[in-house]
C-alpha cells in the first residue's frame, strides 16, 4: 500500500515537472531558442498568486488568473526585449542574456520578499481520503487533475486549432511557414506566452503542493525541466508529458527504495544516456536533430 502511496507521490511531483517541461519543449524544442530564465517565470507565477491571496484577499481562482496574466506578459517581454535582438549573435548570446535576466529577476524578488522561503497560503480544503488501505488527500487530487486538464487543453490546442498548427509549421520550417502566409513573429510571441503561462501555473501548483516558495526556486526546477525534455524528445509535447511523469515517479521511487542522494544523478544520468543512445528522445523529437 505504501507502493501506491509512492505512485501518487510520484504523479504529483511528475505533474509539476510536466508543466515546466511543456513550457521548455515549446521554446527549446519548437522555437529552438534558449531561455534560461524560464524557471524564474515559474517563480514569479508563484509569487503573484501569493500576493493575490495573502495581500489582496483573492481566492485561488483569481490567483491563478493573475499568475497566468502576469507570466504571459512576462514571457512576451523577455522575448521581445531581449531574446529577439540577441538571437542574431547565435545560440549562445541568448544563453548569456537570459541568465542575466534570471539573475536580475531573482534579485528583484529577493529584495521584495527576502530570500527566505515564505509560507504559501493554503486555501484548498484539505481532507484525507481513505479508500481501502490507500490514503491520499484533496490537494494531491487537485494538482493531478488540474495538471492533466492543462495538458489536455494544450494538446488540443496544438493538434486541433489553427494556432497550434501554425506553431508546428513554424517549428518545422520557418521559411515555408512564412510562404504559407503564417505571421511567424506573431506565432513566436504566442508560443512564448503559452510556455510562460504553463510555467506560471506550475509555480502556483508548486506553492500549493510544497507549502512554500522562495526566489531561487526556479533554478533547480528549471534544470530538471531541461533534462525532461531531452528524455522525452525536444519539441515533442506528448513526450514531455510522459517523461515528466516518468521522472517524477523515478525520483520518488529512487528516494523510497534506494537513496535520495542519487535521485538527481538518476535523472541526469538517464538524460545523458538518452542523448548518447537515442538523441531524439524516447518519443522522438519533432525535427531531426540539428
Amino acid at each position, binding site marked *: 500500500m*505504501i507502493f501506491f502511496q509512492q505512485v501518487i507521490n510520484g504523479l504529483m511531483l511528475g505533474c509539476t515537472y510536466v508543466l515546466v517541461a511543456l513550457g521548455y519543449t515549446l521554446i527549446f524544442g519548437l522555437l529552438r531558442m534558449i531561455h534560461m530564465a524560464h524557471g524564474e517565470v515559474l517563480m514569479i507565477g508563484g509569487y503573484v498568486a501569493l500576493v493575490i491571496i495573502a495581500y489582496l484577499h483573492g481566492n485561488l481562482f483569481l490567483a491563478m488568473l493573475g499568475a497566468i496574466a502576469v507570466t504571459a506578459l512576462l514571457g512576451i517581454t523577455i522575448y521581445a526585449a531581449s531574446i529577439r535582438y540577441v538571437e542574431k549573435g547565435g545560440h549562445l548570446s541568448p544563453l548569456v542574456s537570459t541568465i542575466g535576466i534570471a539573475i536580475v529577476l531573482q534579485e528583484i524578488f*529577493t529584495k521584495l520578499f527576502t*530570500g527566505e522561503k515564505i*509560507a504559501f497560503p493554503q486555501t484548498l480544503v484539505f481532507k484525507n481520503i481513505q479508500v481501502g488501505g490507500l490514503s491520499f488527500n484533496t490537494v494531491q487530487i487537485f494538482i493531478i487533475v488540474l495538471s492533466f486538464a492543462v495538458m489536455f487543453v494544450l494538446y488540443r490546442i496544438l493538434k486541433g486549432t489553427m494556432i497550434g498548427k501554425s506553431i508546428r509549421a513554424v517549428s518545422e520550417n520557418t521559411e515555408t511557414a512564412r510562404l504559407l502566409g503564417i505571421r511567424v513573429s506573431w506565432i513566436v510571441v504566442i508560443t512564448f506566452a503559452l510556455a510562460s503561462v504553463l510555467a506560471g501555473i506550475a509555480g502556483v501548483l508548486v506553492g500549493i503542493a*510544497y*507549502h512554500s516558495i522562495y526566489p531561487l526556486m526556479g533554478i*533547480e526546477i528549471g534544470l530538471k525541466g531541461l533534462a525532461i525534455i531531452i528524455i522525452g524528445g525536444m519539441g515533442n509535447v506528448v513526450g514531455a508529458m510522459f517523461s515528466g511523469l516518468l521522472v517524477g515517479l523515478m525520483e*520518488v521511487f529512487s*528516494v523510497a527504495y534506494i537513496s*535520495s542522494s542519487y535521485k538527481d544523478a538518476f535523472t541526469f544520468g538517464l538524460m545523458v544516456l538518452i542523448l548518447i543512445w537515442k538523441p531524439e528522445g524516447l518519443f522522438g523529437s519533432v525535427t531531426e536533430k540539428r
Partner: protein
Amino acid sequence: MARRLFRFVSVMAFVIGLLTFSLPGAQAADITLGALIPLTGFATGFGENQKVGLDIAVDEINKAGGIKGNTLKMITYDTESKGEKAILGFRKQATQDNVLAILGPFLSTEAEVCFPLANKYQIVSISASAAKPGLAEAHRPYGFINATSDMNTLPPAVDYWVKTHNIKTVCIVTDIKDALNKSTGQIVFPKLLETKGVKILGTSEFVTGEMDFSAHVSKFKGMSPDGIVISCTLADAAGFIKEAKKQGLGKPFIGGVAIQAPKFLELAGADANGTITGSSFWVENPAAKSKAFVQEFMKRYGGREPNPFAANMHENVYLIKQLIEATGVTNKPSDLDTDRQKIQKGLETLKNFEGVTGTFSVTKEGTVDKSGYVLMAKDGKWVKP
C-alpha cells in the same frame, strides 16, 4: 575600433589602479571592524536576518559613546554565499581596510576557506553561525565560532523527548548535502539516542532543497516508529512535518539546531505543535537583555523574529568591544598586528560573558560552552515545555 580598444584598456588600468590603493574611508580615530555576511546568493535570507542583529549592536554601541570614546565603524562585505567571494572580502578587510577583527563568515563552507586566512594574517575571525563540528578546533588559534553544535544543545532536549513520549524506537531523516545536518542526523542523534537505549528502525536521506517528502514519509509510516528525528534545514523540516501530518503520520518530532529559527514555525504552522528541539537562543526568553534585543529586532525587520545567528552576531560585536576595551588595544595603525593579537589572546581566555542568549565562556577549542534550552513548538512560538 581603436578608440574602443583604447577606452577599454584605460578603464582596465584605472580599475586595477583603484584596487591597488586603499581608499581612505574611516576617520583616524574610528575603530574599524569587518563583517562578512551573505547578502546575495542562496543564504540571503539568513544573511539579511543576521545583518539586522549586527546593525542593532553597532547602533547601540555608537549611541552609548562608541568604543573607548571612538566611533565603531563596521565594514560589511557581501560574500554572495560563495567561498571565493568570502576569500576576496576577507583579504580586503584584513590587508587593505585594516580592520581589527572580522565578524563572520556565515556559512561553514565560507569559514573553511576563511579560517586559514585568519591564521595567515593573524586576525581573529569569529563566526556567529558556522556550526560545522570541529571547524574552529581545526583552525586554532585565530578561528572562533560563537555558535553551538548540536552535540552541546541537544542532550537535554533528547532526554526530555524520550522520557515524555516514552520513545523506544525512532526513524531518522537526514539532509546529507548539508554538512551540519548530515553530522547531526548521522552521528549526534544516533549517539545520544543510543545512550538512552532507543532503537533506530530506519533512516532516510535526501539533499537540501528537497521539495517532495511524500516518499520519505510513506517509508517511515510503514515502519511505525514511536518518534521521528528530523535533521535538515528548517524549510525542509517544515515540509517534512507538513507532509507527515498530511499522510496521517502524527508522531512526536525532534529536530536539531537548524530548526531553531522562528521561520521554521512560520512555515510549518500548526503541524509543528509539540516538536521538540534544543537551542542556545530562546526567542521568548523573558530575560531583560534578550527581550530588549528581540523587540528592537522586530521593530527593524517588519515584525519578524531574529534567528539564533542574528543573536550570536549581536553578541560577537559586544565581545570584540569588550576585548578592545579590556586588553589595551591602542588602535594606532602602527600597532595593528599587536592589537589583533591582543584581541585573539583575550578572546581565547574569555569567561562568563553576558550576551543576549545568556552567559557563556569561550572554550579552548575556539567555540563556546553554551548548552541548550529545551524548547517545544506551540502555536507558532518556541516555549519551554
